Each structure stands twice: as C-alpha cells, then as structure tokens.
C-alpha cells in the first residue's frame, strides 16, 4: 500500500507564499472573499441542488409540522409575499434605503479617503487624531440618529432622510479612513527611489506610487465601510425612520402587524443588498487589487 501522503501526492513542490490564493489580494484579509469560488459544472450543480434542497426541505418540514405562518412562514409564502405588490410594499422603501446608503457612503468615504491621504503625510498629525478615529470607528452611529433629528439645521430637514445619511457617513467614513491610512503608510522606499530617479514630483509620487500601493487597502476600507453603512442605514430606520420609511422601517411595521412572511421578504431584500455590495467589491478587488498576492 502506498505510504505517500495524500495531500502532497500530485502537488508541484513549491513553497511560494499564497500560490494557492492569488485571486483577490488584501480583500481576502477581511475574510470576505476568502471563500473558494466554484468553477466546475459539478461544483456549480451541487450548489444549485443544495439550494433547491434547502428551500424545499424547509418547506416540507414546516408543512409536515403544520407550523403557523406567524411562527415561521414557509419559503413559498415568503416568495409570494415578496412578489405581491412589490412596488408598494418594498420598492419605495428599497429606494429610500438605497439613497441613504449611497449618499452616506459617498460622503463618508470621500472625506475618509482625503483625510487618510492628508494625515499619513505627517506622523504627528496622525498620532493626535488617532483617538478620535478610534472613537468614530467603535461608536455605533445609528445611536446618533434620534439626536440628529432634533439638532440638524432646519435646511437639512430633521424629519427627512438626512439624519440617516449623516449616520451612514459617520459609520462608513472612519472605516475607509483607518484602512486607507494603513495603505498610505506603506512606503516602499525602493519604488519611491525609482520614481525620484526619473525626476518625479511629490504629486507624481503620490499618484503613481503611493496611491496604487495603497489601493488594495482602500478597497478593503470601502468594502468594510459599505457593510457598516448598510447596517447603520437599516438600523437607523428601525430606530428612528423618517416619514419616507425605508426597509428598516418596514421590518418594524410588518413585525407590529405580525405579517411575518412580509417581514421575511424584507429580510431577503436586505440580504440581497448586502450580497450585492459583496459582489461589487469582489469584482473591484479582482480588477484593481489582484496584483498583490
């Protein structure tokens, strides 16, 4: 009988770091994309079969146990709740949440990115502002929404979506900042020497060396910041929605009416939003950060 260790049998001897996982660079550090992607027909077929099995398996168990839908709705009920009156029940609210999320992340991440680029130039400044960044990162910003409703200037509308946009910006911005700062702090002296030897200006060094070097970490920051942003948007709506509503508001609304299939349909939509964010950054990371093993 062969004594050859199984896991080494047909491997090409190589001790190169990360030779197995060269796909998405530091996005993997977040653990967000470190899941192996399915490639072969067998793998994809199994995934689809498992999903179908889970769906109908749960359906079968709930039917057999005669569980009432207000305790746990059957998957088919959730699907029909999702497809009935989508526009009225969810469409508008999805749009409201998407607006809060997109505007909040856009504002927060832009400020976070610019601040990261500026403060990393001066270690002194970085040390002085570090405590505030930690506070911003660790404080759940959705707690601020009721306060913002009272205190925001009239022009920004205490009753509209702006308090939630602010909270999303405050939640996502520091995440982008802290990760981007890590990226900008990576100084590769040899690469800077290379650019300088060709007479590069400080701005050219930033644009052509420091920024590309930091880009993988910036993408990580955007991914983590976006997920925090979605969390904050939905949470804020649950805690203190405007009259516009939003998906978080709908969760509270359906729960209070014990419309459990609709409640679960809303969860499905929020999950789909989360997965969309994941897919977007998976693709961005693959395109722009795959050079880093």
């Amino acid at each position, binding site marked *: 009988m062969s004594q050859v260790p199984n896991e080494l049998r047909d491997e090409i001897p190589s001790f190169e770091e990360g030779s197995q996982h060269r796909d998405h660079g530091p996005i993997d550090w977040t653990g967000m994309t470190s899941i192996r992607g399915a490639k072969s027909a067998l793998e994809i077929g199994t995934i689809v079969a498992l999903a179908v099995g889970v769906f109908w398996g749960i359906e079968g168990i709930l039917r057999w146990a005669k569980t009432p839908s207000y305790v746990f709705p059957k998957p088919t009920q959730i699907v029909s709740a999702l497809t009935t009156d989508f526009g009225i029940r969810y469409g508008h609210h999805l749009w409201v949440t998407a607006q809060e999320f997109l505007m909040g992340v856009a504002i927060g991440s832009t400020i976070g990115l610019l601040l990261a680029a500026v403060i990393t130039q001066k270690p002194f400044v970085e040390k002085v502002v570090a405590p505030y960044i930690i506070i911003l990162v660790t404080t759940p910003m959705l707690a601020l929404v009721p306060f913002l409703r009272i205190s925001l200037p009239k022009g920004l509308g205490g009753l509209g979506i702006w308090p939630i946009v602010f909270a999303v910006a405050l939640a996502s911005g520091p995440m982008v900042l802290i990760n981007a700062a890590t990226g900008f702090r990576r100084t590769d002296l040899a690469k800077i020497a290379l650019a*300088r*030897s*060709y007479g*590069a200006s400080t701005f050219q060094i930033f644009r*052509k060396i420091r920024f590309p070097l930091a*880009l993988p970490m910036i993408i990580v920051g955007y991914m983590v910041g976006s997920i925090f942003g979605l969390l904050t948007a939905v949470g804020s709506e649950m805690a203190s929605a405007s009259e516009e509503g939003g998906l978080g508001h709908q969760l509270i609304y359906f729960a209070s009416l014990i419309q459990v299939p609709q409640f679960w349909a809303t969860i499905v939509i929020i999950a789909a939003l989360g997965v969309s964010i994941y897919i977007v950054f998976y693709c961005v990371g693959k395109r722009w950060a795959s*050079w880093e093993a």
Partner: protein
Amino acid sequence: MTEAESTFASGGVVARRHGEHAPHAARDEVKISIRDATKVYAAKTGPVRALEGLSVDVREGELVCVLGPSGCGKTTLLWALGGLHELTRGQILVDGVAVKGPRPEVMGFIFQDANLLPWRNLRQNIEFPFEIKRRPVDAVRIESLLAETGLAGFETAYPRELSGGMQQRASIVRALAQDPAVLLMDEPFGQLDAFTRDEMNLLLLRLWSETGKTIVFVTHNISEAIFLSDRVVVMTPRPGRLARIFEIDLPRPRTIEMTFEPGFIALIQEIKRTVETGGRRTDVEVS
C-alpha cells in the same frame, strides 16, 4: 590616498592597461568624479559612518564594479551618485557638473530585485519613466530592446508572472529605453541563481558593448565583479572606505570559461584577502 588613480597605478596583480576597448568609447574622458565622498547617517544609536572619504574617477564608457561586503556603503555611494542622497562631505561631479539631485536625462538606475511596479504589466512598467518625464513613448526603441532581451511577447505579463531573470531584464529595458549615458546598477543580479546570473552578466556585457554606456555596478560577488569590470573598486565596511582598485585585463569579449582559469581564481583570492585585511597589505607583488 588623495587620488584613486595612484592607488591602482602602484599595485594590483593585473595593473596593465588592456588594449581592447569597446570601439565607440572615448576612454580617457573622466565621466564621473567622486571626491572625498563621505556620508554619515544620524541613527538612533548614534551617527553611522556609511561612507568615508572615497575618491574615484570613472572614465567615459567604462564599466566599474564597486565591490565589498554588506555595510560598506555601496548602495549609499550609488544613491549619492544618482542624486537620491546628499553627501555629508565631499562631492560628485558628472560631466564636470556637481550632482545636486536626480539627473534623469544623464543617469539611469537599475535596482535590486528589479523593482518593477507590481500593479503594472511589463509594457506599462517600461513606459513608467516616460510618464514621469511627460515624454512621448519611444515605441521603436522599446520594441528593439524587448527583442534583444528576449522579452518580446511578454508585454502584457505582470511582474509576478515573470521569472526573476525576466523581471531584471525588464528593469534593464526600462532604464535603457531612456538612453541615459550612465547606468547605476545596485546588486541587480544578487537574488538570481548562479546560472541566471551568468546569463544576465553576458547580456549586460553585450548591451554595454553595443551602447557604450558608462556603468557603475555595485555587487558583493567577487567573481561577478571581475568578470564584468574594467576596474574593481574594493571597499571595506564600517566605515565604507576604499581598500584598493584592481585593473582587470581580461580580454573582451569575455566568456564564462575565463572564470575557471587559474589567473581568474587567483584574482578572486587576492580580492578576498584585500577585503579581509581592509586593503592594508603592502606586500603585494607588482606584476
């Protein structure tokens, strides 16, 4: 020791000037003049004297190797030559003009480990200096250099997809595409295996004889230094001082077989002794 010239003129196992030069080179024009180059770094543990009173002249079209163990200020010297460092004392003249900063139109660097930008493919890496200088890309020149270095067809490959030797060839193309008169090479082949290193040395000599560049080549490999050089500047560490300058009279074009000859091996031993004794030996026979 006031003049580098006097150091080699007075000794060395092979102090005879050799006759065969690259035909294009105006050999006796001084291209680079290093005068009392001294560099002191302010480290936390106190000042570090990386380079101490080094004076050497490099003639136009000459290939000079700076040889020594790590910590003898070789890279410091090269960075000062390229205007990336300021000297604490002394000065460096290139074409009679003091080096005060990078002179990209005259000097090109070739770094350790190729130093390609990993987010750019091979072509984009080679075009990088053109972008920095805001000059139109010399596609014809790049094309012929790529062909000459055997990189044609790999233009869209990323550095991590290339072998160490190919990466370093790409970095040579990147430097030569700018057509600088002087090449400053910082242990460019140090990370390569012995076979690839031989290959790269032969390629470098071929490119050098075709282009007539003045080359200052830093290495800690004695055999490589002798094989490439017209002269080998041997330095001793901490502080980095000139030990001795060896004239190498091996005929050109050079072949790998020359490195197995007794004279070559004797010279390796001689240089090794010089490094170990810090060049203080005075009993060297003049041949």
